[in-house]
């Protein structure tokens, strides 16, 4: 058994040093392997803290799995000289940048993507990105550094200040008035009831939940092999649902602050309230998506 393992290892070692191309690919894989422990650590820690890390990891694995399924087709692709040279160039540069990635997360991810791109370019040519857009997209999404933080920064850069908070405070006030409460907006981001006032901060604007819903629906939609139009619909529904469901949450928070005291507010605002809220959203989302799928299949069979 041990001898067999050594034989296999020798075989792969020999094979990996056989030609210039296999040597370059091995170099690229070496870069990937260097970062793998860091990625795994971050995945485990992130999942334990309840982040969306598991979704991006799922996207990466799904993308690689899709490519693996196509391996026979991939082996038949021809590479031209330009692509091969460019691929080697990218692998070489990623090796040079390797030390920088240990300290900074986003450099690590970009170098990782660069090594992947170099391997793909030099082995299968640039046509591979056009022919397999979904696996490519999934791998890029899976390795994207801090998607929520980047989303927040971009949103704040390109939208007027406090747009989402103002919208949420306004809709919360309208909602409270609709159920007969004497709610007032004392400033653009605060709701006042006779017993107290709440201010809508960035954390309560529903943006984080919308991002998580968008990524989750994207990954799930692509995993169950829905058509692109339907995946887009699922993403849009996910975002809309997260934002709409945030309005009752704001109303509930305002009511608990005004009438039920600080304890109730902290409960609904803290981790328990957040989990109940997320659970409710995912349940509603599940039934909406199932309804859409069922309707679509039945109308197709007619």
């Amino acid at each position, binding site marked *: 058994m041990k001898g067999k393992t050594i034989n296999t290892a020798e075989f792969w070692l020999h094979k990996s040093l056989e030609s210039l191309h296999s040597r370059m690919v091995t170099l690229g894989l070496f870069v990937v392997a260097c970062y793998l422990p860091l990625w795994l650590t971050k995945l485990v820690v992130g999942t334990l803290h309840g982040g969306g890390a598991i979704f991006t990891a799922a996207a990466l694995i799904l993308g690689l799995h899709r490519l693996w399924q196509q391996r026979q087709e991939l082996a038949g692709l021809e590479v031209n000289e*330009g692509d091969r040279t*460019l691929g080697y160039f990218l692998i070489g540069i990623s090796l040079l940048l390797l030390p920088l990635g240990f300290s900074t997360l986003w450099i690590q991810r970009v170098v990782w993507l660069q090594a992947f791109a170099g391997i793909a370019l030099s082995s299968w040519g640039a046509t591979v990105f056009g022919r397999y857009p979904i696996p490519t997209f999934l791998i890029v999404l899976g390795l994207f550094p801090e998607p929520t933080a980047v989303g927040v920064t971009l949103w704040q*850069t390109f939208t007027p200040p406090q747009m989402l908070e103002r919208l949420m405070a306004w809709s919360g006030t309208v909602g409270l008035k609709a159920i007969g409460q004497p709610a007032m907006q004392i400033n653009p981001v605060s709701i006042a009831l006779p017993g107290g006032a709440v201010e809508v901060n960035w954390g309560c604007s529903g943006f984080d939940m919308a991002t998580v819903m968008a990524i989750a629906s994207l990954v799930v939609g692509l995993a169950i092999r829905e058509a692109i139009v339907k995946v887009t619909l699922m993403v849009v529904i996910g975002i809309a649902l997260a934002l709409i469901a945030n309005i009752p949450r704001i109303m509930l928070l305002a009511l608990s602050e005004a009438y039920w005291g600080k304890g109730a507010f902290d409960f609904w605002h803290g981790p328990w309230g957040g989990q109940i809220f997320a659970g409710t959203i995912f349940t509603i989302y599940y039934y909406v998506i199932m309804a859409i799928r069922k309707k679509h299949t039945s109308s197709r069979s007619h």
Partner: protein
Amino acid sequence: MTSIPASMPGAARPERTKGICQIVGLVCLFGFALNMLVLFLPPQIGDAAWRVGFLQQFGDRSLVLLLGAALTIAGSQDSRRWSRQLSLFCLFLGGIYLITCLLVVKDTLSLRQLALSNINAQETQVQNEIRNAQSDPSALGENITLEDLQRASQTLSGQATVAKQAAQTTVLKTGITSVINLVAIGLGLIGLGRYGMSTRQR
């Protein structure tokens, strides 16, 4: 008799077109190189703000480089050696453009951090002065009350938030436009290089 004057310009036209391509292409490349040299000197490589400014200009003007490279490749398709060299050069240049993006992103993030911490430091300083004044009410002037100070402190933090947002937006917008420019030109050069190499093989 009649066929000769008709065929002569037809035979000469591709040659003339190639000549024009080469001239315009070389002018573009040469002009770009000189412009960049002027912008580059005197180099302050260690200064992040200088790097961001230089790379922004570099990205803005690189369209000239792309056009020059395209025209030169189009003009030198007859000479196999030249077109291959040029295509390889374009390919590497495109790769370098893409990698330069990393530098732009890194510098943009560090400049943003710098701007935010500057504003924070200023805010902290003024808030400390207000707090000192609050702790020593006897030193206050006749017509300044503690409530005035409280209100001033709130206004200050509001203004600091707005300033932070504005600084962040400016820095990030500059960075994002630079990155878009560099990625577009880099991909263009790579496409040009690939195309040049594939026509050579044909």
